[in-house]
């Protein structure tokens, strides 16, 4: 179909200038009264076997990106390429293949598992839909998946309500692994879990990545968790990427004032190490009428005159570090 070829062939996933606007409907005739600019011109890529962390506060558009990648939402503008193919122009066969290759793990292990299905069936369902394996072979595969995520296969006939949050999250992970995907979009996979269970799930995700060569898009608001799991981290603010860097680089040399504030806002469990804190003034503005110029400028302690007039673009400052801020021309 005259598909533009992916220029950088090594990327598993590439997002180009993605925009997703949601209409605001008003009145009896549901006339369009404006747009929520949830994602506004985001470009990102994920390499094979790489974990890209995506952090930001609630409402910054990080989950919307995840949903666009999964094609649960259609982008308003921009393209998403998976293995070099534009996912919005795939034919039905291609789409079926794509669904197998890209899977998701959601935040709330309570609402993301069907309460009327046994957990065995929840994990089996993707295999049925895709027509993979049959009979004894399929059962073997399901049992195998249970063991992989640290659950006993005897649990298969039970229902989701019989499990704790951590166990449910493991069931969700088993389901996402059933079709041997290449990319898993993890949307806040541990934020609903207790501290001691978080570590178990993070370690499990790590082990599975090593074993199956998976790539993750790891969406979360907790920077310390993201730093731990990711190879590269993208920081989002109000629908835009403000900084992208290698994991350690982002922590040791944060450049964007928002990233710095975000890092300094996190309390660390070391009582003798009091750190100086940049407290951000105000709150995240509404994405309906985002501020002109740099979207962060009303809260930025280093805002200059140019920041309210012009919009900065994401520029590379070194090989592994891009930032969108006028402080770094």
């Amino acid at each position, binding site marked *: 179909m005259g598909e533009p070829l992916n220029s950088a062939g090594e990327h598993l996933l590439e997002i180009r200038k993605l925009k997703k606007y949601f209409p605001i409907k008003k009145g009896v005739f549901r006339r369009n009264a404006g747009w929520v600019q949830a994602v506004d011109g985001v470009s990102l890529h994920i390499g094979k076997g790489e974990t890209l962390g995506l952090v930001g506060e609630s409402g910054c558009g990080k989950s919307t990106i995840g949903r666009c990648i999964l094609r649960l939402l259609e982008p308003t503008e921009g393209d998403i390429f998976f293995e070099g193919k534009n996912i919005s122009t795939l034919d039905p066969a291609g789409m079926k293949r794509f669904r197998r290759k890209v899977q998701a793990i959601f935040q709330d292990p309570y609402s993301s598992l069907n309460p009327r299905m046994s957990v065995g069936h929840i994990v089996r369902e993707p295999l049925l839909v895709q027509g993979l394996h049959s009979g004894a072979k399929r059962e073997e595969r399901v049992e195998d998946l249970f063991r992989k995520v640290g659950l006993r296969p005897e649990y298969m006939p039970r229902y989701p309500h019989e499990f704790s949050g951590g*166990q449910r999250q493991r069931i969700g992970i088993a389901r996402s692994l059933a079709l041997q995907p290449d990319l898993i979009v993890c949307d806040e996979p541990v934020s609903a879990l207790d501290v*001691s269970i978080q*570590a178990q799930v993070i370690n499990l995700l790590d082990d599975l990545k090593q074993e199956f060569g998976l790539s993750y898009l790891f969406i979360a608001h907790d920077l310390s968790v993201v730093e731990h799991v990711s190879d590269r981290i993208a920081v989002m603010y109000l629908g835009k990427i403000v900084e992208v860097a290698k994991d*350690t680089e982002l922590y*040791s040399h944060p450049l964007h004032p928002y990233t710095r504030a975000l890092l300094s806002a*996190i309390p660390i*469990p070391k*009582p003798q190490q009091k750190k100086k804190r940049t*407290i*951000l003034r105000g709150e995240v503005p509404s994405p309906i009428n985002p501020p002109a110029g740099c979207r962060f400028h009303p809260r930025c302690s280093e805002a200059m005159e140019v920041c309210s007039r012009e919009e900065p673009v994401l520029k590379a400052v070194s090989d592994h570090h891009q930032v969108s801020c006028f402080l770094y021309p």
Partner: protein
Amino acid sequence: MSSHPLLNVRNLRTHFLLPEGVVKAVDNVSFQVEEAEIMGLVGESGCGKSVTALSILGLIQSPPGRIVSGEILFQGNDLRKMAPDQLRRIRGDRISMIFQEPMTSLNPVYSIGDQIIEVYTEHCGLSRKEARERAKEMLEKVQIPSPAKRIDEYPHQLSGGMRQRAMIAMALACKPAVILADEPTTALDVTIQAQILELMVELQQSTGTSIILITHNLGAVAEYARHVVVMYSGKIVEEAPVIPLFESPLHPYTTGLLNSIPQLGCKSAGGKKRLEEIPGMVPSLDDLPGGCYFHPRCLRGREICRKEEPELLEIHPGHQVACWAVREGW
């Protein structure tokens, strides 16, 4: 009078009588809060930290809940022995509370102003007009922009952070001696969390109030608390001043918790390490193991841990721990 600690909880047991059996949500918990201090109460969900706070305020729903035994001494007087109207006068006045979810704990049909005004008219005997002035001052103190306008707004018109500020304004209205803050920032974004915590500490220092900071966020406790109580399955497993608790924790559960959280910057400091995990999960309160409740998940457990329950023992001054391994030194 000053020989009494401000709040002294002694052997508190709060149980819930359910058809399935007795759930010992809080089981023999004792701690003290001194004047003008921030105490951290940490633990995972279901460990009894919120029930402890509700017990102090006499807000346990009964039935099924019941404070079975124990004393809650506030300035030397037992809150449990007080008549309901006496307790009412203390609650919201001398002892107040900040809840986790400000959307569900503020009344949606009253403006935030009305809700703060009520505190003043109820407890301080102010006229509505005076109370309104004071409420406005309070909103200004918690840094809500344009308080004169915001005072007439309803909870749904405010953002999560603003609602929590309104809650704090309400809790501080009568200059209470103690504030019980139950997960005050958990529902908020990181940058707003920092704002709210700083605000609470600032106000705590200027008014000399004590705060019991109930949270699962160990970082927040490390930064703001002076002494810390760690709970597990309804019991206190360790209590210590903040520095020893974080620098040299003794209970295997405390150590496990501290090692299981990814720490910012650790990766750049020493390469990627695997997180240490605590195996298994928190036991259900209606099906607790015998002996030490933590033993099925404990790596240092031995025979005795399965049979006998360890008592809290003071190891260093102010540092108490309930663990056989520490006590016996294996």
